[in-house]
């Protein structure tokens, strides 16, 4: 199991994502995972062996390294990427559940042929109803996890600059010793890059939330507008029908009294105004 298989698992969810969701997934894989694997891991590769303290005391190096780097940047980013990508699997589970239910229904109605089942397997679901809520929850989780990791990063490494020198006085160091960090500038560059892309991902997620809410509102309004139009039309239609009936009754009544019947002008006008 490595990043490649992880990509295969996560990108399966892409079919049911919005356009912004697909952009987010590409940003995650190209600008974060790929950069982590091909570049950042080699920068941090010698972080422990290259961490040197100005003392011969055995153990001082280890202890000071542990004090200043409780968890390596690389591992923190790897955990962040894994945890941030997995809420997308909620959507995949919901879609799988819907497909399962549709298959059951089809089988019960006697239309469970291989062609119909194949159609269900390849069906692309609209992000509406319960799936909309699942999708929203997954995006909210993503945002919360990203921000949480950014905050943890800030707590452990306040400031994004990697210092060249740290001073350490933990046992067994004999006194306050100078310890030198390897490749501090390169580490600063990659830290700033990864944090910037993380911020960009948060913005993309917020944009996706806004887009989904906007689409849902538009659908609601269009739905309620159509409902009111239908109500208006059916109202007018019933008035028109009533007028026609009244007219027929009047004609019948008049026929019995007079030879020629006259159409009343107001009714004609109303009829014209029905549409």
């Amino acid at each position: 199991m490595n990043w490649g298989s992880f990509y295969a698992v996560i990108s399966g969810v892409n079919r049911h994502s919005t356009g912004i969701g697909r952009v987010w997934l590409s940003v995650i894989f190209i600008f974060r995972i790929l950069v982590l694997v091909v570049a950042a891991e080699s920068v941090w590769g010698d972080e422990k062996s290259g961490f040197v303290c100005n003392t011969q005391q055995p153990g001082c190096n280890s202890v000071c390294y542990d004090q200043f780097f409780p968890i390596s940047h690389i591992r923190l980013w790897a955990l962040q990427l894994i945890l941030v990508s997995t809420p997308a699997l909620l959507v995949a589970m919901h879609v799988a559940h819907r497909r399962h239910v549709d298959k059951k229904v089809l089988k019960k109605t006697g239309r469970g042929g291989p062609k119909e089942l194949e159609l269900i397997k390849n069906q692309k679901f609209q992000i509406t109803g319960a799936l909309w809520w699942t999708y929203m929850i997954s995006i909210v989780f993503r945002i919360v996890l990203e921000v949480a990791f950014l905050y943890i990063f800030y707590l452990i490494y306040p400031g994004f600059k990697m210092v060249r020198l740290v001073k350490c006085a933990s046992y067994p160091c004999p006194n306050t010793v100078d310890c030198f960090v390897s490749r501090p500038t390169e580490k600063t560059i990659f830290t700033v890059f990864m944090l910037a892309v993380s911020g960009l991902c948060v913005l993309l997620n917020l944009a996706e939330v806004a887009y989904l809410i906007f689409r849902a509102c538009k659908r609601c309004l269009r739905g309620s507008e159509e409902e009111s139009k239908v109500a208006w039309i059916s109202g007018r239609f019933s008035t028109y029908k009533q007028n026609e009936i009244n007219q027929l009754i009047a004609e019948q009544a008049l026929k019995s009294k007079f030879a020629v019947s006259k159409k009343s002008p107001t009714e004609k006008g109303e009829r014209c105004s029905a549409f």
Partner: protein
Amino acid sequence: MSWPALYSQLVGGNRHSTSLGKIWLSVLFIFRVMVLVVAAESVWGDEQSDFTCNTLQPGCENVCYDQFFPVSHIRLWCLQLVFVSTPTLLVAMHVAYRNHSDKKRLLQGSGRAGFLTSKGQEEDLETLRRRRLPIAGALWWTYACSLVCRLLFEGGFMYALYVVYDGFQMPRLVQCDQWPCPNLVDCFISRPTEKTIFTVFMATASSICMVLNMAELAYLVAKAVTSTLRSHQRKKCKKSGRERTHNKTTHVSLVST
């Protein structure tokens, strides 16, 4: 043989799992195997080379490392993941056995009848291969046994880790006086805080997997109990229905006589 090969084997067996079983497999592979491979292995990579003791005595570091780390966390987790994944193969074997016996029966039946065309036979064999067996009868017992085995292995390995390393925290310093160390020497462990973080993470993921397994077992038991009760009720209704019709016919015959 590697993790992706194990994954493909388990996914095949997972077809006949419940939804909780499928969630369990995802949690296992994403939060445990993947974290082990991409993160934890590099944290423990220099565990022996960077284990330093405050002495120049040759052999002292080796001996002290061996005393405090009889088996590395990484190897313990690898073993745990392999043992915990294999009960699923019990289910896959049972399903394969059922399919094999059904296939034999089908071929024998068609041979005797002699009217099935080869195309029809092929379609039937294909449906047999693709079908998803319900978790009932003997398969229910196999599945329940596999869940119990998983729980035992998870619990066993977590307990073993806790006992061998005296808790989940990795100390910075250990004191060792094994021969050939000249006296009580201080030995320093590399990256203890990072190791503690990952140990706690893996223990949490293991606990989540145990909870999922227990929930799945409870769900299976509940499903079995409700289906038994329903079948008992149906039998009772049928019996009372038959009795009523029998009484009616006897009444009618009595009346007619």
